[in-house]
């Protein structure tokens, strides 16, 4: 009952404060009148009675204040009043408020954006059932320098039989020809084991999934495919569609929120052994092509390595000659393996944005410090007049809260805008889905930041103003000044250090970008366009027909106007198409499989080297005579030649290629090395086989055009017409310039460098503004001292040097700390750099000079003002 009453009183007090005040004033004056009347009745004169009554009363205002304190809603009301006052005082001097809010907006915007990106990328990349239990199983070979290689089918079977995992499944990616609503298209597809769906806990959006023992021709579409290729037609489910030339029944559609690694495919097919780019023999003999996922309860994780080792041992004993007998199996978190490539960049970005945020906070602290100094007299006076310390802290709190609130709201807006931009950009560089611009978790994070910043600033301000001490008024002005100057200087040093770190990072990444662009890839991509031709095997099952088609195709294409050379290749560089093959020279002893070197496996038509302008350094290229009726030949790269034969002449030597399926090839030519997996990694040994001796189904068409680089795409229709004239059933090919593959391989570096450059620029601006602010503030505070010096005979040049010296000391301190930080963090950045040491002296010198130059300007401007101080005015003030 009491609570309810109190609540009602609270409401009344808050809603009608004037009414309450009026009633109080009335009551007190009535009381006073009664008191006076009483005294008059006791015999005093009116004037004496009044005096007595007032004395007895004890001060009307004090009584009013005591009543107010007792009233419900006092705290709230005082808080509201403080906020209104703070708002008014901020509006009166909008410069401070705007600068502080903007600075905070930049810093917090960066922090919130980073949090959102982190959340989207690493927070929950997989939405399967209990994703923390899912493991990705892969092979690695230390000798061959291979990591996370695909498993072979026999090994997968061995894994399944050992029952190490509660559930295990596999999938393999390929390209399929799909007859969609708008014609034949090539789509990324995957062959999966039926156990994949229960393993991941997937449920279909429409229709149903296929099971583990599925033998019919069925297919599952992803939501993306169903939407893009079949226009979300409901009738597709259950109907037949043409995939790879055969009718498949569509059993169902997968949900739209399918995450990696399955979201990269459009069609899922059963039959993991029906891979079209490997022969059944190759599959049996251990060719690795499967991604394997297993589910393991957290408790069983410890016994995994031993169990996997057992599997490896048994496999090695059963199939000693298989190519992957020497590989070791390992399991890692599926989540981790899916995000592996982007982690270094994300961490670097996170660190950079953290730097910017800290910088912004330092800046805002500097601003508050200056403002506090200006307000100190007022606060001291209020404390001396009896204001509770609580009220003073509340006053500080309301100011910092308004600034923090405004800044963070703006920052949230900036972050949301940035994330929206990223989402609309839909760049393939960003391998994780950005569904919302600002997730709820990011909002919570923003709220936490808000609380943290306003609390921290309030506390710092209160401590600095000495509000906790009883003798608030007693700290001397000069002592206070020294304290705030020291703090300001510390902040400036911090800002300079942080901006140096960001500047260095940006410089290093930009330099890396330059080096990467300058890398010699070994081929000339200018004017070259490429396209996928995966449909050949089904059309030409007989080698003789296949060979004829290929020959005719190349000849017809090269006769087109504007086409210089045309070729087919399996294993195009930078196309993520690399497969390996074992090889050894004939005259070496047959070493164990483990010790045999591997090289990249490529199959080409004779004109390939000319089309890609890969230099032939010895021997000759393939010709149409190198077919199945003639001895096997091979062309090797320079790296292979060095690896197998050292300095000896490789031409005419024989090599044995393959693990269990072996063939002897004669080396007829040597070509230059080519950068293949990654532009920044040195070339691995390569071997080229003639397409007429090694039929490879999935080829890429490479066409070098004669015209200007930009016109290459314009030839696409002509090329397609030519192909279709040869074989009307071929689909229209989509071409892209080879240069795009080269650019794609550096694209994420470019993005990272760009973002870091922007951050560094922002950091520089903030640091300069902060330095300028602190230095001018110091000059203002020391005006009397400067005036005194000038009056006592110092030259204005001397004053300039004085201020400059002080500022320079700060700069040097900042540079030293920044360099130390950079050295400490060099390790983390080295993963992203190429051909540049993280402590590259040239970049260091350049960054430091740039920073020093800008800082000098920031110091010079207030120093110049100091020079102009009129000693008389300064001393009089």
């Amino acid at each position, binding site marked *: *009952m*009491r609570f*309810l*009453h*109190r609540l009602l*009183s609270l409401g009344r007090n808050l809603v009608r404060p004037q009414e309450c005040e009026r*009633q109080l004033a*009335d*009551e*007190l004056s*009535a*009381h006073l*009148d*009664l*008191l006076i*009347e*009483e005294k008059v009745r006791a015999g005093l004169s009116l004037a004496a009675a009044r005096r007595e009554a007032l004395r*007895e*009363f*004890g*001060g009307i205002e*004090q*009584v009013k204040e*005591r*009543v107010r*304190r*007792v*009233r*419900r809603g006092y705290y709230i009301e005082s808080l509201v009043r403080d906020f209104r006052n703070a708002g008014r005082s901020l509006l009166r001097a909008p410069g401070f408020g705007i600068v502080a809010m903007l600075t905070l907006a930049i810093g917090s915007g960066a922090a919130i954006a980073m949090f959102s990106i982190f959340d989207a990328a690493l927070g929950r990349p997989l939405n399967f059932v209990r994703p923390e239990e899912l493991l990705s199983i892969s092979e690695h070979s230390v000798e061959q320098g291979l990591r996370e290689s695909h498993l072979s089918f026999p090994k997968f079977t061995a894994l399944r039989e050992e029952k190490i995992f509660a559930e295990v499944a596999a999938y393999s990616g390929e390209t399929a020809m799909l007859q969609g609503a708008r014609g034949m298209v090539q789509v990324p597809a995957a062959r999966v084991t039926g156990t994949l769906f229960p393993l991941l806990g997937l449920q279909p959006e429409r229709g149903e999934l296929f099971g583990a023992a599925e033998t019919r021709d069925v297919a599952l579409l992803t939501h993306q495919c169903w939407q893009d290729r079949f226009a979300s037609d409901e009738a597709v489910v259950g109907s037949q569609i043409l995939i790879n030339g055969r009718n498949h029944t569509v059993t169902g559609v997968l949900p739209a929120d399918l995450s990696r690694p399955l979201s990269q495919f459009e069609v899922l097919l059963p039959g993991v052994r029906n891979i079209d780019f490997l022969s059944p023999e190759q599959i049996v003999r251990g060719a690795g092509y499967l991604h394997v996922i297993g589910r393991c309860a957290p408790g069983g994780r410890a016994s995994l390595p031993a169990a996997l080792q057992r599997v490896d041992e048994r496999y090695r004993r059963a199939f000693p000659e298989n190519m992957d007998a020497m590989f070791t199996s390992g399991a890692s978190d599926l989540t981790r393996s899916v995000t592996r490539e982007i982690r270094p960049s994300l961490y670097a970005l996170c660190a950079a944005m953290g730097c910017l945020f800290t910088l912004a906070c330092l800046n805002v602290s500097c601003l508050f410090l200056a403002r506090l100094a200006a307000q100190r007299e007022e606060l001291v006076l209020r404390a001396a007049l009896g204001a509770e310390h609580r009220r003073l802290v509340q006053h500080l709190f309301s100011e910092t809260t308004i600034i923090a609130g405004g800044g963070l709201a703006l920052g949230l807006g900036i972050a949301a805008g940035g994330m929206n931009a990223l989402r609309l950009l839909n760049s393939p560089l960003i391998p994780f889905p950005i569904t919302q611009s600002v997730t709820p978790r990011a909002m919570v994070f923003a709220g936490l930041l808000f609380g943290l910043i306003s609390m921290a600033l309030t506390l710092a301000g209160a401590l600095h103003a000495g509000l906790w001490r009883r003798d608030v008024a007693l700290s001397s002005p000069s002592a206070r000044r020294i304290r705030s100057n020291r703090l300001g200087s510390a902040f400036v040093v911090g800002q300079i250090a942080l901006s140096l770190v960001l500047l260095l990072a940006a410089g290093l990444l930009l330099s890396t970008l330059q080096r990467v662009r300058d890398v010699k890839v070994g081929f000339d991509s200018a004017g070259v366009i490429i396209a996928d031709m995966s449909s050949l095997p089904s059309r030409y099952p007989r080698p003789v027909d296949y060979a004829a088609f290929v020959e005719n195709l190349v000849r017809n294409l090269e006769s087109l106007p504007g086409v210089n050379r045309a070729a087919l290749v399996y294993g195009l560089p930078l196309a993520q198409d690399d497969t390996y093959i074992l090889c050894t020279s004939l005259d070496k002893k047959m070493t164990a499989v483990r010790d045999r070197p591997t090289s990249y496996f490529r199959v080409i038509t004779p004109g390939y080297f000319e089309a890609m302008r890969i230099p032939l350094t010895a021997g000759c290229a393939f010709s149409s005579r190198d077919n199945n009726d003639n001895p096997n030949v091979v062309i090797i790269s320079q790296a292979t030649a060095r690896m197998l034969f050292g300095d000896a002449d490789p031409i005419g030597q024989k090599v044995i290629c393959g693990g269990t399926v072996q063939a002897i090839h004669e080396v007829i030519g040597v070509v230059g090395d080519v950068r293949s997996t990654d532009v920044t990694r040195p070339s691995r040994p390569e071997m080229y086989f003639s397409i007429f001796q090694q039929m490879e189904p999935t080829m890429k068409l490479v066409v070098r055009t004669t015209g200007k680089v930009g016109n290459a795409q314009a030839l696409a229709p002509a090329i397609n017409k030519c192909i279709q004239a040869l074989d009307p059933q071929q689909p229209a090919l989509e071409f892209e310039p080879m240069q795009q593959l080269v650019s794609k391989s550096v694209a994420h570096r470019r993005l990272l460098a760009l973002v870091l450059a922007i951050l560094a620029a922002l950091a520089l601006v903030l640091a300069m503004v902060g330095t300028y602010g602190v230095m001018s503030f110091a000059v203002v505070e020391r005006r009397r001292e400067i005036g005194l010096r000038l009056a006592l005979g110092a030259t204005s040049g001397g004053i300039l040097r004085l201020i400059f010296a002080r500022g320079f000391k700060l700069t040097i301190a900042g540079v030293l700390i920044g360099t130390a930080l950079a050295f400490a963090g060099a390790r983390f950045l080295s993963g992203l750099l190429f051909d540049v040491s993280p402590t590259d002296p040239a970049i260091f010198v350049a960054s430091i000079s740039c920073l020093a130059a800008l800082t000098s300007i920031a110091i010079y401007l207030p120093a110049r003002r100091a020079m102009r101080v009129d000693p008389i005015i300064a001393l009089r003030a």
Partner: protein
Amino acid sequence: MSAPKHGPANLLQGTLDLLVLKALAFGPLHGLGISRRIAQITNGTFEVKPGSLFPALYGMAEAGWLKAFWGESESNRRAKFYQLTRAGRRQLEIETQDWQKISLAIESALRAT
């Protein structure tokens, strides 16, 4: 706890509430009247100044123990009168019992050697 003519500093807020409630037990009074009544019933020991009286009155009014209304004093002047509510009467009983318990306890503590 006896310091005549010194109100606020030496009077515990709780006992002031009790005294006010008791003073109003016999009927509604205005602020000055409550002050005088308390002085009377405590034999002059406590003189409650406005600085402590009014905060106490407002606090108790907001808690629902007193009801305030404007009326006329004996000399026909306008004054604000306070009256015990039912909850106030209950509170008076509770506080009386509490006080008796406390004073018995302290008395026995002081008697012990």
